[in-house]
Every structure is written in C-alpha cells, then in structure tokens.
C-alpha cells in the first residue's frame, strides 16, 4: 500500500536535535515556504522512504504542553487541534535527548495521552555512549507503551533507516488505547468530576480526559478548550490539597513520579564534570568570557569586510560586463535601456552584497549551533536586565544584525511580555544586512583604505562603528522604554545550556543557503520591481533629444520627487538623488543602492556601464562643481541609515507580533526622528569642525 498522505509530527524539547532530524528526513525536499523564524509555527516538509511519501511537520521545541512563551503556545495549540480530532498526524516522533532522558520524556508522556502511535527517537545516542549511559530500549518501549524506541544520532546519521522503517510500521497501526500511567486512587477520585466534564463536553477518550483533568487542576486552563465551571474546579483543587497533592504541582509531580519508576536509570553521577563544563571555565570565565565574546564579534565584522571583497569585485565586474554584452546584443532603444539600466543594474546592485550577508548568517548559525549562543545569553543577562532587557534578548538582537524580521520572531522565546516588547521596539536599530550594502558602498567609495594601530583597517573600523552606534542606541532606548512601559508580571530566567558541539558544516551551510535564497528571491522581487519603476521615473518624460541624456534626467519624474524633498534633507548634506533613494528605500533599505545605480546608469546614458562607486565619486554638483559625495556626506548618510525606519516588512511583522498598530507606528516615528537629528548633528557638526 502507499502512504501518500500520511502525516508525521516531530516534537521535542529545545536542543533535542529535532530540526537536525527534520532536515535528514526531508532531505532537500523541504518546502522552503518559511522564512526562518517567520513561520516558525509550522514548517512542513515532505519525505520519501522507499515507495511511501510522508508529510513531516516540524514544531518549535518545548518542555511541556503548558506554555510559558508564545513559541511554546504554538505547540499546545496544535496539540489542542489534534485532541479535538482535527488534522491528527498518523504518528508522532518524540525526539528526546538520550543524555537527559527523564527530563525529555516529560513531554513524551503528555503526548502519549493522545492515543496516537508514538515513536521515541533517542537522539544523541553517540554522546550517551561517550558518557557510558546505557539505555534499555526494550524496557523503555514496554513501560511507556509506545510503538517503538529507536536510538539515533541525527548528527552522525545513525539509526535513520531503522527509524524510517518504524515510521512506516507505526503509520499503518491502529490507535492505541491503553492507559499510560498510574495515578494514585485518591487523586483519581478527586479529579473524577473534571474528567467526566471533559468526557461529556468534548467526547474525549479515557486517557485524554484524565490527562486534561490533571492539567486543568494544575494550571486552571487548557489551551484551546473551555474549562469546567469554577465550582467543579475549586472543589477538585480543594480535595487534592486535603489528600496532600497541592494542585499547583500536580501534573509534573505525577508524571515525574511515574517516570522515575519506569524509566531505566541512566544518570550521570552528580559530581562528574562534563566536557562542556570544563569548556565553560574559559568561555564563561569572569574576565575571559566577555573578552572572548567581544573579540569574536570584532573578528566576525572584520572578516565580513575583508573576505567578502573578492566575490564582491567579481560580481561587480561581472554584472558590468554582462550589461555591456547585452547592450551589444540587442538594438539600442527603450528595451535595451530597460534591460541594461533597469533590470541588470538593479540586480547587480543587490547581488553584490550577497557575499557579506551570507558570511554574517554563516557566523550567526555557527554560534547558535555550537551552543555558544546560550552562553552569551547568560553572560549578558545581568547587563541586559540593567537596561530593561532579558538574557534571551541577546539572540534576537544579534539576529537583528542579519535581519530584523527573524529577530523579532525569535523574541517569542522571551517569556515576559514587557521585556519582549522592549526588545522588539529597539531591534530594528541593530544594523541588519540590508544596511550593509549602503555601509559597504559608502565606506568602499569614501573611507580611505588605510591601516591604523598597525592591524585594524580604517574601513573595517568604520563599519564596526556603525554597528556599535545602532547597538548602543538600542540599549539606551530600551532603558527608557522599560521605564515607560508598565507591567505587573514578574520576569524569570531559566534556561537550559546545551552541551558544546562542533557544528555540522552541512546543516550550517543549509541555513546559509536557505536564508540567502530568501534574500535573493523575496527581497529581490521587491527590489527588481522598484528598480524598473525607478528606471521609468528616471527615463521619462523624454524631452527632445538635442538636449542630451544628462539634461533629460534632470527633468524626469524622479528628479521632481527628489527635488521636492531636497530642501528638507539639504541640512543633512543630501542632494535630490539621495532624497529619491530615501523615498524608494522605505520599502526596503537595500533599494537605496539599486536606486543610485539606476539613476547613475541612466545619467551616464550612452557610455558603457561603469561601476556605481566610480559614478558616485565622479558626480559633481552642476552649479558649484563640487563633489556631491564627500566622506562627510557618506558618514551622514550612514548614520541616517543606522536609525531610519525603512523596512515595510519589519513593521508588518511588529504589527502581527504585538497585535496592534500602536507599536509599529510608534517605531516609525521615533526612528525617523532619530535618523534626521542624528544625521543633522553629524553633517552640521562636521562642517563646523571644518570637514567637508
């Protein structure tokens, strides 16, 4: 038989290696419909084992079905759907970290109550062997009454075939109806009215209704379900207390008690120091820790600038040559103009920055996969609390260096609303990769390529300075915002530190590929469309040819828009071309570069396409004869970009994440204000100090 529409759900604790397994099972058949971190709720992939094809659902990592953060709430919502009988998967793979079995099996015991075939994937079995932890899979399978227990190593791709076979087996099996765990009789009596309530109202199985009765007694509510009348609930909670089971801890107490009895003991002596612990003696050391972190950060940004320059030059030259080639292939005219100046020019201006973006994503993924990112969170928590943030704000803020959107999405792991909101509000101040093109263009063209202090390149340092400016401002503002936003809920910080692992290049590169591809396709589409519109605005209306092309762009629609806003931005040192760029880049920052590219290509008209940097350096004010772009203008423009609110997608996400227009609108206002005054201070201050 074929299992064409069988669905498998992957669930597990954070750090259990769930996503690595998902990648292995789906191979390259993964539907990349998700922007990493954006549709974290549901990553759907397809897989083919032999003749059977499966849909595989990857859900965020969670410790239990009682959600603390938004991230975990997604899992409980999905679970609620299944409990009601909608979209029930044919089988669940519960991915557990075999080195920390009991803790990981807690979620598994909650899943078992659904009555769906469950396969336990005992992941990281290689690490367990290393620590000489013996796990009796048969005993585990018997006592938990699951379909199968398969030891695997997602890293080493061990046990995957066996797992695939078990998946095929489990998917044709009937629903299991056996009871999952023993609860003391007095407890059962106390919660019986609750159990009956769920049975009557939702027609749940015995297993599930007991499970729900325990959970509702513990937490007072169940995601996606109504709660029994308060009188029934109060009565049950009172009864529980009298028999010595305070309701607040009922569920974990019962489940752990049961797990402690049935799970084969696989515990490391408490005094035994793990390798990660020894590594932490250096990496989270009082002095070395922060020092290593800062060094690493500086190194990454230096590398982004130096490594990327080779592929960037290649792309730059390549696109210019390609433009020339195309312009010689097709007869001169509107079409050739559009292709060379609009399309190829616009595409080139974006592709050129891909190397830097990929390198940044590469390093961020490396930090995350190695387990170091969690250490950054604990090292920074105290400092973060001081400015009103949370240790968990560090990762979103650092992701913000790549792109604010996945950064904002990943704030879902911060369990306090206020700290989450403040993180979101300041996150777009972290210089994202879309600013890199502007920084790189300005620095490459106008900051001298000198070495100072013997080692540091001036260009690289300027880049670091821009990132620093954004980051510092973000921290200062978060302090202000957290004083201003009031809340009652207390925040807490409990975080698992995953063991250090050497990241697998393959999975790191896959991340880089996925995100890079999304940058090119998603952002590329907007940029391409805007490039073409711009080319049109810059090329029309055509006036009589005797005046020549240079004249014509000065009369174009584009010039009109630019000139209209010029008076406002003149004090910042910007001319109408930059003004037009500011307007177009509200859609997305990187559009600035393609805007300039399009305008300059158009302006150069008949000449062979030249690189944008050259064109900008040569650009002179037609009246005064002075250069339009000076190092000071470049600096002012960069500062503007550090602060400005110029990404529609970001604000759309903020609207979604905060569920109101209030916050995105607020962000647009405060960021625009910062940008204008920041730039004003830089330019006017620079002029006063005698720079030009």
């Amino acid at each position, binding site marked *: 038989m074929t299992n064409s529409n069988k669905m498998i759900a992957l669930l597990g604790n954070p750090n259990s290696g769930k996503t690595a397994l998902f990648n292995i099972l789906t191979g390259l058949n993964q539907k990349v419909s998700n922007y990493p971190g954006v549709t974290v709720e549901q990553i759907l992939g397809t897989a083919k084992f032999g003749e059977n094809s499966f849909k595989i659902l990857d859900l965020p990592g969670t410790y239990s079905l*009682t959600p603390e953060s938004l991230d975990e709430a997604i899992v409980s919502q999905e679970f609620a759907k299944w409990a009601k009988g909608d979209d029930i998967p044919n089988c669940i793979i519960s991915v557990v970290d075999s080195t920390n079995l009991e803790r990981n099996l807690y979620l598994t015991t909650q899943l078992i109550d659904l009555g769906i075939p469950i396969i336990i994937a005992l992941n990281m079995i290689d690490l367990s062997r290393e620590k000489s932890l013996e796990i009796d899979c048969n005993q585990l399978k018997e006592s938990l009454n699951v379909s199968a227990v398969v030891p695997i190593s997602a890293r080493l791709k061990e046990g995957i075939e066996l797992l695939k076979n078990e998946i095929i087996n489990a998917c044709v099996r009937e629903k299991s109806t056996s009871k999952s765990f023993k609860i003391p009789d007095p407890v059962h009596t106390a919660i019986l009215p609750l159990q009956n309530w769920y049975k009557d109202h939702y027609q749940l199985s015995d297993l599930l209704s007991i499970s729900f009765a325990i959970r509702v007694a513990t937490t007072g509510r169940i995601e996606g379900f109504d709660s029994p009348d308060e009188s029934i609930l109060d009565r049950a909670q009172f009864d529980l207390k009298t028999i010595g089971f305070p309701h607040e801890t009922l569920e974990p107490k019962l489940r*752990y008690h049961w797990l402690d009895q049935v799970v084969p003991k696989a515990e490391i002596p408490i005094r035994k120091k*793990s390798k990660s612990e020894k590594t932490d003696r250096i990496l989270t050391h009082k002095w070395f820790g922060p020092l290593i972190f800062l060094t690493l950060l500086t190194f990454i940004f230096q590398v982004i600038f130096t490594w990327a320059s080779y592929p960037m030059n290649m792309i730059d030259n390549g696109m210019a040559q390609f433009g020339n080639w195309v312009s010689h292939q097709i007869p001169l005219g509107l079409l050739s103009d559009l292709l060379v100046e609009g399309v190829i020019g616009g595409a080139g201006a974006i592709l050129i920055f891909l190397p830097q973006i990929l390198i940044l994503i590469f390093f961020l993924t490396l930090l995350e996969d190695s387990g170091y990112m969690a250490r950054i969170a604990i090292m920074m928590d*105290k400092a973060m609390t001081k400015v009103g943030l949370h240790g968990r704000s560090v990762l979103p803020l650092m992701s913000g260096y790549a792109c604010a959107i996945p950064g904002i999405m990943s704030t879902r792991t911060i369990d306090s609303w206020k700290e989450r909101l403040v993180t979101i509000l300041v996150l777009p101040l972290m210089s994202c990769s879309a600013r890199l093109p502007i920084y790189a263009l300005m620095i490459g063209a106008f900051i001298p390529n000198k070495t100072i202090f013997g080692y540091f390149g001036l260009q690289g340092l300027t880049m670091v300075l821009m990132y620093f400016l954004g980051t510092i401002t973000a921290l200062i503002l978060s302090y202000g915002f957290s004083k201003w936003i009031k809340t009652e809920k207390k925040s*807490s910080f*409990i975080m*698992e*530190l995953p063991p250090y692992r050497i990241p697998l290049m393959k999975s790191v590169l896959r991340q880089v590929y996925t995100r890079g591809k999304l940058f090119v396709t998603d952002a590329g589409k907007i940029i391409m469309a805007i490039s073409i519109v711009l080319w049109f605005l810059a090329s029309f209306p055509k006036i009589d040819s005797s005046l020549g092309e240079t004249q014509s762009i000065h009369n174009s629609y584009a010039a009109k828009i630019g000139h209209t806003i010029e008076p406002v931005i003149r004090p910042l040192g910007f001319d109408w071309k930059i003004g037009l760029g500011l307007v177009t880049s509200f859609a997305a920052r990187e559009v600035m570069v393609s805007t300039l590219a399009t305008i300059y290509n158009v302006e150069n008209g008949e000449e062979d396409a030249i690189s944008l940097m050259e064109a900008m350096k040569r650009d002179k004010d037609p009246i005064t004869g002075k250069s339009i772009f000076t190092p000071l203008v470049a600096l002012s423009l960069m500062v503007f970009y550090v602060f400005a609110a110029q990404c529609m997608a970001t604000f759309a996400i903020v609207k979604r994440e905060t569920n109101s227009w209030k916050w995105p609108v607020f962000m647009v206002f405060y960021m625009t204000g910062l940008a204008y005054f920041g730039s004003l201070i830089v330019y006017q201050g620079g002029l006063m100090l005698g720079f030009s």
Partner: protein
Amino acid sequence: MNLVDLAPSQVGIIDELNGDSQFISRLMEMGFSKGRKIRMIYKMPFKGPITIQIRNGMISLRQLDASQISISLDD
C-alpha cells in the same frame, strides 16, 4: 539555605520549591523536584545568573529565581 548559597562544585538536595504556581511548574518541568541532587557549577559575576547541574543537564537561572529553591547540603 537556598540554591544561591551553594558554592561552586558543592552539591545540595532540594527541600522545597517556592514562588508562584507557574514558576514552580516550570521548575518541575525542567527537572527540579524535592529530593533531587543539584550541583552548583558557576556563578556569573555581579550577581548574574548561576549555572547548575541537575538530571544530567546544565541549567542557568537568575539568582532571584534560584533563591526560591530551598536546599540542604549533601555530604
């Protein structure tokens, strides 16, 4: 004494989890429970988070949260 009082590499046994019910259930889900052994690994400077060993795993928590966990020394 509470968890914060443990010196690095000292081992304690959990006596009681205090705080609001949500906090306690989170602790229990992460593997904290009465009678469990717990070892202090390190403390971040300036009263930053502490890192402990429990049930084969390393967990970090703020001192404010950790002070809610009463323990007694294990010898």
